[in-house]
């Protein structure tokens, strides 16, 4: 039997390749994701390993605010500590440093890097001690005082800046111009893990970054013979409360794990698409196996007649699946290496530049190969399970019959089972979204796909008839034959279409979701934003935005009635890290209607907090109660709940006043400013004036009311684009599935094609018939996909209704485009099989 199996594989290279293609593609995405993320992680690990190599200990504040995914801010310490630490026995050298946000403007006037979408943009102090300074000069000299700066090599190149240039840098203290005196490299790398670094002499850095008299940390080099731990113990004795010392090793590990946290979201995101790709592959593999086994009925029956047991037949199919699974998975890892480069390029195209730790991290490869191999093989064998059982049930007498490949009976049981699985899946999605336990939603979606897969054959015939009607009417005999072919084996049509169904369902679901979210956001902003202009930095969160000085300058303009800057703060509320909206109570409520139903501008004092109604409810507090809040400066503040509002999209979970947040010593950056004009001022006149002020802040985009409202959903489009790009792989796998089925079907119909050719069907007509069959199959899959996608989209929107998502918007045009694209995918998939079928030798076809 072994021999027969191997012979069978060798004798049918075409079908082996076809099946393996699905495994290869599915696994390649998983392997590509793993290879890519391990490369990125390695790049950061290497970076931080060299960074702290010569640092024996570091001193810093113990006060931090963390909001997850690696977003963290730490309090600053007093710079007088440097002298105290330097005086400790065993300390060889000390170096205080500051860091903050600084946006460097390139020679083209555009900001370099956007912390909203990629690595951070740092402003840093230049270390005088070469061993404690992680940067080394590659050109020019070190920045020595006011008005001077250095840049990392990568940023200088990206901004086309060289030594001697005047460079504009934006920080929380405003827009300043410096002379570029030096270019430096970070360890062995051109930049600090892709971040931009503007480097200043310490005193200048403190001034520019708004950290007068303060430091973010102190680096320590110990005397010879003093260990890292010993020096930490020694200096700890002179440290005040809320300041700690850690070893260089700890600093390295923390930095590495912070990056790993930051990348974890990213890994989960990519892994989700890898799971989708494998899931789609499983459908294609299962379908290919079941067609092959139907076609090989006589072969198996003959083997049975010659004395092969059921177990041997079963074993034979499993062995074939095992070999295809192993070979396909290994090739998948190979393709994954290529794909990892594609992923990097794709993410870069979407503005997410990530550093590279080399193409392949060899130490990670065994793990990646094993995961890919095990998963690929299991999926292949599991997909072959039902077809293999069917093969084993073939009675020896079948050998004597004509091929039973195309028998299909309407099956009531199948219909009911399929329906039941669809309903269970829908219930699981409902539970998963409402609980909320997102994995149940995923399992539910998977179950619905399987249910549709089971259900498909019972509905494929009537739907194909209906979908094919216009084609049959317009394309004459070839159209009619195409439709008849798509109807003659509804099980096959349904299974072939199912892979495409998954891809289209996800695309349609995401499209509906995005469209609904965009509509909701635009509605909310249109209702809540009562101003005339917005100046938007495009960044959101700490480390992004422009100096509050811009808002102040705009407020001075004669055309302007009110200008208010909005910041994002980080803090802990009752122990949980979260974002805070930071607003100026005197002006913000004039520009935004956040649905304030308790409190008002006058109640937002420096010891007050405004809460979203749902947030107040979940915290169990009411108006007038106090909540414990901690900011980056440490120490608990009891803030009084002095206002309640209803619009999370505009003001998040909680809001505090600008003056309170400024008192915490946190970096102050406006992520946007909003403007109301004086009565009678022309919009265009105002635009000119505002632009003239904003010119000095290249990361500030001036938008009028309509432009701003529209731009609020633009971020979604970018994410949507990325998701579409990642889902393309699922569609490509589905296309392979369609091509596979067509190829196998035309082999089955060789004689029929021969007869048609003999009685006068041209090659073009043969191709046309197969092409339209593919289109009908693809349309069937796309139609089910759109229906499922609408359901998924609606389910998610419904689950989000408490988060203020009020609109269920069905973008008809986009969905029509999706369906048309699916039909084109079918058309492309049909090219190879249809050309092959049309080239059949008429005589051999008839004789076969």
């Amino acid at each position: 039997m072994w021999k027969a199996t191997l012979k069978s594989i060798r004798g049918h290279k075409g079908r082996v390749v076809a099946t393996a293609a699905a495994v290869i593609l599915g696994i390649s995405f998983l392997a590509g994701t793993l290879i890519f993320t391990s490369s990125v992680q390695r790049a950061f690990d290497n970076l931080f390993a060299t960074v702290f190599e010569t640092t024996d200990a570091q001193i810093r504040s113990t006060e931090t605010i963390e909001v997850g995914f690696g977003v963290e801010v730490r309090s600053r310490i007093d710079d007088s500590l440097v002298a105290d630490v330097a005086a400790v026995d065993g300390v060889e050298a000390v170096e205080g440093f500051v860091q903050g946000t600084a946006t460097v403007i390139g020679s083209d006037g555009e900001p370099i890097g956007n912390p909203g979408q990629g690595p951070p943009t740092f402003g840093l102090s230049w270390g005088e001690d070469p061993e404690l300074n992680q940067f080394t000069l590659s050109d020019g000299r070190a920045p020595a005082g006011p008005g001077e700066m250095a840049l990392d090599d990568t940023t200088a190149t990206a901004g086309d800046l060289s030594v001697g240039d005047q460079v504009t840098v934006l920080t929380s203290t405003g827009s300043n111009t410096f002379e570029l005196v030096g270019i430096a490299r970070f360890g062995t790398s051109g930049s600090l893990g892709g971040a931009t670094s503007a480097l200043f002499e310490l005193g200048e850095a403190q001034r520019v970054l708004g950290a007068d008299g303060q430091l973010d940390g102190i680096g320590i080099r110990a005397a010879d013979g003093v260990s890292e731990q010993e020096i930490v113990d020694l200096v700890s004795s002179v440290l005040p409360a809320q300041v700690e010392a850690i070893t260089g090793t700890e600093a390295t590990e923390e930095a590495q794990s912070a990056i790993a946290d930051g990348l974890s979201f990213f890994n989960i995101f990519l892994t989700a698409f890898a799971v989708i790709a494998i899931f789609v592959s499983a459908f294609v593999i299962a379908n290919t196996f079941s067609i092959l086994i139907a076609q090989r009925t006589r072969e198996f029956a003959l083997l049975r007649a010659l004395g092969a047991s059921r177990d041997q037949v079963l074993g034979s199919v499993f062995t074939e699946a095992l070999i295809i699974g192993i070979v396909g998975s290994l090739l998948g890892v190979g393709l994954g290496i290529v794909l990892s480069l594609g992923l990097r390029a794709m993410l870069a195209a979407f503005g997410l530049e990530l550093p590279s730790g080399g193409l392949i991290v060899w130490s990670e490869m065994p793990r990646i190969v094993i995961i890919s191999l095990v998963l690929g093989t299991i999926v292949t064998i599991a997909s072959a399970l039902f077809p293999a059982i069917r093969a084993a049930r073939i009675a020896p007498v079948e050998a004597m019959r004509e091929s039973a490949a195309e028998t299909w009976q309407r099956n009531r049981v199948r219909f009911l089972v399929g329906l039941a699985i669809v309903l269970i899946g829908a219930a699981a999605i409902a539970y998963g979204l409402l609980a909320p336990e997102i994995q149940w939603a995923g399992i539910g979606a998977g179950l619905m796909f399987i249910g549709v897969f089971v259900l498909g054959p019972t509905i494929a015939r009537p739907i194909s008839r209906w979908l094919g009607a216009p084609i049959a009417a317009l394309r004459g005999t070839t159209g009619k034959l195409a439709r008849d072919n798509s109807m003659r084996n509804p099980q096959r049509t349904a299974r072939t279409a199912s892979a495409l169904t998954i891809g289209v369902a996800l695309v349609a679901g995401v499209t509906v979701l995005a469209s609904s979210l965009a509509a909701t956001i635009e509605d909310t902003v249109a209702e809540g934003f009562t101003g005339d202009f917005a100046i938007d930095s495009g960044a959101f969160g700490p480390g992004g935005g422009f100096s509050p000085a811009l808002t102040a300058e705009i407020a001075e303009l004669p055309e302007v009635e009110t200008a208010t800057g909005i910041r994002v703060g980080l803090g802990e509320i009752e122990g949980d890290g979260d974002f805070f909206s930071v607003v100026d109570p005197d002006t913000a409520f004039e520009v935004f209607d956040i649905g304030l139903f308790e409190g008002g501008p006058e109640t937002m004092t420096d010891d007050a907090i405004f809460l979203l109604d749902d947030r107040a409810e979940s915290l169990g507090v009411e108006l007038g109660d106090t909540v414990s809040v901690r900011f980056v400066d440490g120490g608990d503040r009891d803030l009084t709940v002095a206002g309640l509002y209803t619009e999370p999209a505009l003001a998040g979970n909680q809001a505090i006043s600008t003056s309170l947040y400024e008192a915490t010593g946190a970096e102050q950056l406006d992520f946007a400013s909003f403007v109301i004009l004086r009565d009678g001022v022309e919009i265009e006149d105002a635009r000119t004036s505002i632009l003239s002020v904003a010119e000095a802040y290249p990361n500030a985009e001036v938008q009028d009311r309509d432009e701003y409202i529209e731009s609020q959903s633009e971020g979604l489009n970018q994410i949507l684009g990325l998701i579409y790009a990642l889902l393309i792989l699922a569609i490509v796998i589905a296309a392979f599935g369609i091509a596979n089925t067509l190829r196998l079907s035309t082999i089955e119909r060789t004689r029929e094609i021969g007869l048609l050719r003999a009685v006068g069907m041209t090659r073009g007509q043969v191709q046309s018939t197969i092409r339209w069959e593919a289109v009908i199959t693809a349309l069937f899959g796309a139609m089910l996909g759109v229906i499922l996608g609408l359901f998924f989209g609606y389910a998610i929107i419904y689950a989000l209704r408490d988060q203020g998502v009020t609109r269920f918007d069905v973008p008809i045009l986009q969905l029509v485009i999706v369906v048309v694209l699916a039909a084109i995918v079918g058309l492309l998939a049909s090219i190879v099989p249809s050309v092959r079928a049309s080239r059949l030798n008429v005589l051999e076809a008839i004789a076969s």
Partner: protein
Amino acid sequence: MTDATSTSSGTSAPPPPSRGHAATATNATKIYGEGDTEVRALREVNVEFEAGRFSAIMGPSGSGKSTLMQCMAGLDRLTSGEVAIAGQPLSVLSDKDLTLLRREKIGFVFQAYNLIPTLTARENITLPLDLAGSKGDRDWIDEVITTVGLKDREHHRPNELSGGQQQRVAVARALASRPDIIFGDEPTGNLDSRTGAEILDFMRKAVDDLGQTIVMVTHDPMSAAYSDRVLFLADGQIVHEIASPSADEIFDTMRHLGD
């Protein structure tokens, strides 16, 4: 090039130059393989099939009878020599033109698997016309369907028809476009003798009453006896010919050829 390919229907074409011959083969030679494996299936065969007659080609397995039919019907190409259908030489035609010629000027009845399973009897009959995008002659098609006795089964699919009925559909399809010539390759080979006789009777009638030209390859003397003329092939050459044959004559000749 003649107008063979642009003519939409064989019946409306002006009389071809050699009106007397529906098909001719001149020095027809067909060689399969090369070198040691070379097989000469046809050796310089010269034959003419007259219009309005029923001819049979006989010969033992490997005699080249099927090859001759396939080459004359435009399903295969000769190695050398020429075949002409209604005066149109086939060697100069492209695959597409050859296909169009088959569609318009030639009818086929194969031994088995003659019908498209997804089409009804009537749709199978009109298939060559439908492929040409032509409506055909409705009255003629109805007459053909009635003549083959399928009036009440024309909307059935092949799997709902008996073997004899299926073969009658195949014959009706061959007649539907009123081709210059119909080629049959063992058209009764898969049928029991009574049903086979029915089909042959019908083919005979098509020649006598409708003026159709039919060339049939067979190995069965009883079948060949329905024809006007039997050609005997052996080793790729025509070795004998009988006009208005009886089954006994054919048997005798075959025994003779075996000597």
